[in-house]
């Protein structure tokens, strides 16, 4: 029986913890890509080879050593239905790619869902560690120690010159992608966001919107991550991301203060309006929900209103995604039903928080 505990709750337990600067940095994530020697990458591997990858990565001694770092559960992609996969994607526990392209894929999750180990995604092994708030260094420390566990039992594809060999040339070297999810409403409102995002891209980092289509950032949520994986040490990559994010936090804080100083009444009106609509609306699409939830979160951060806790806000971000709504309200809901369900879910959640 596949383990279904991971798709029942919207909020991973790790997200209930508090991190540094968690009013602006929602979460930190580190992903490490590795491949096994002498087996083609999943792109060209046949089912038997993929099975061999899975076996070698999950053999007994490996599992035992892994369990010493916590309790881990494995979910094979061919054992769960597409809706459960969708929910795991919305919780950022697996990639869309693993969900849709990898029938021989699997994910190993720990109890609080802060560690997600994907097998047979684009690479044989992808270790992902998530932390609440701004804790990208801690996320790396944990990811590298899990990497060591696997490395005790398997031979990685590694080259003296090119480092860890990955399927995509953009991951070669360290195989490391470190990222933080930031809530930047004041930089968006004061129209500084584009200038800052283009400055960020000048220093080897990439920015993309979260949950939105393409580059559109729904709910003012942005993901900042390193672009370069070759020619820098892991510590340099983490430090670079860290210092840029610190500066962005500073800019966002200044912009928030500026908004309060210059237009406190308008800000308060906007936040309370959104709170009112979230509390009473009967129909709400995902775009409006994201924007209103962003307003509410900002209002709570600024002390304009005493709303629900940040944990509840994080939970709502995930709960209002299409897959999770479908999971909560049944399989055959159409868009309009879903918008009604979304409004209901938000109303009820805010009423008890």
């Amino acid at each position, binding site marked *: 029986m596949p383990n279904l505990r991971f798709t029942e709750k919207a909020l991973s337990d790790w997200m209930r913890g508090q991190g540094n600067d968690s009013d602006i940095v929602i979460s930190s994530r580190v992903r490490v890509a590795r491949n096994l020697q002498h087996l083609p*990458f999943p792109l060209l591997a046949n089912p038997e080879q993929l099975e061999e990858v899975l076996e070698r990565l999950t053999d007994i001694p490996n599992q035992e050593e892994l369990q010493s770092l916590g309790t881990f559960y494995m979910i094979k992609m061919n054992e769960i239905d597409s809706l459960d996969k969708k929910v795991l994607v919305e919780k950022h526990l697996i990639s869309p790619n693993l969900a849709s392209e990898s029938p021989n894929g699997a994910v190993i999750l720990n109890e609080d869902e802060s560690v997600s180990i994907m097998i047979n995604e684009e690479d044989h092994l992808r270790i992902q560690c998530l932390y609440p708030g701004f804790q990208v260094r801690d996320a790396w420390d944990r990811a590298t120690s899990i990497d060591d566990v696997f490395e005790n039992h398997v031979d990685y594809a590694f080259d003296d010159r090119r480092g860890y*060999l990955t399927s995509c*040339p953009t991951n070669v070297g*360290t195989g490391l992608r470190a990222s933080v999810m930031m809530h930047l409403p004041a930089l968006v409102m004061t129209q500084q966001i584009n200038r800052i995002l283009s400055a960020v891209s000048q220093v080897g980092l990439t920015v993309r919107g979260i949950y939105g289509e393409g580059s559109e950032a729904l709910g003012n949520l942005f993901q900042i991550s390193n672009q370069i994986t070759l020619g820098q040490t892991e510590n340099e990559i983490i430090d670079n991301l860290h210092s840029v994010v610190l500066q962005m936090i500073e800019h966002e804080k200044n912009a928030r203060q500026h908004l309060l100083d210059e237009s406190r009444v308008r800000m308060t009106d906007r936040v309370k309006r959104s709170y009112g609509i979230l509390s009473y609306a009967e129909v709400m699409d995902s775009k409006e929900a994201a924007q209103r939830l962003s307003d509410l979160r900002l209002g709570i951060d600024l002390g304009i209103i005493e709303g629900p806790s940040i944990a509840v806000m994080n939970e709502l971000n995930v709960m209002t995604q299409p897959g999770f709504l479908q999971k909560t309200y049944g399989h055959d809901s159409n868009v309009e039903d879903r918008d009604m369900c979304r409004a209901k879910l938000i109303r009820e959640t805010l009423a008890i928080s």
Partner: protein
Amino acid sequence: MLCQECGKRPATLHFTKIVNGEKTEFHFCESCAREKGEMIPGTSGGFSIHSLLSGLLDIETMGKNATGATKASQTLRCEECGMTYSQFSKIGRFGCSSCYKYFDDRLDPLFKRVHGSLVHVGKVPKRGGGRIQVKRKIDDLKQELQQRIQQEEFEEAAELRDQIRNLEKEISGQ
């Protein structure tokens, strides 16, 4: 397969010349092929490297000229997984770890563009990466040695020198 000219780099251009029914094969790396002028030796039709590289020639027209030449990017392939370089450049994914070796000639510009560097300096696996770890340790010790000498701390410097020698023995013996 190595380049028949320099014998160092892998051959990425493969030609078969047929004159009066006699077949001769050529295998060059890209830089040697370039150095030989823009022409492939012995081709009376004057096929330039650039037209070969840009895929202007197909096998059929070659046959008519009684000369079989195949475009490098189409036949440059990983012997391990079978992926060709042109497939790689289309999908942007390697097929296996050996692709890195077979396509090595072409990868520097790509990595330069994506990463701004060519060489890994980060984490090394404990197993299989022992040699490179020792090499890096030696580099660190050598730097420290220079500092000690500058600060005239000769006792410490002598110790470091011995350590370096031992490590160098270790990797040359491997």
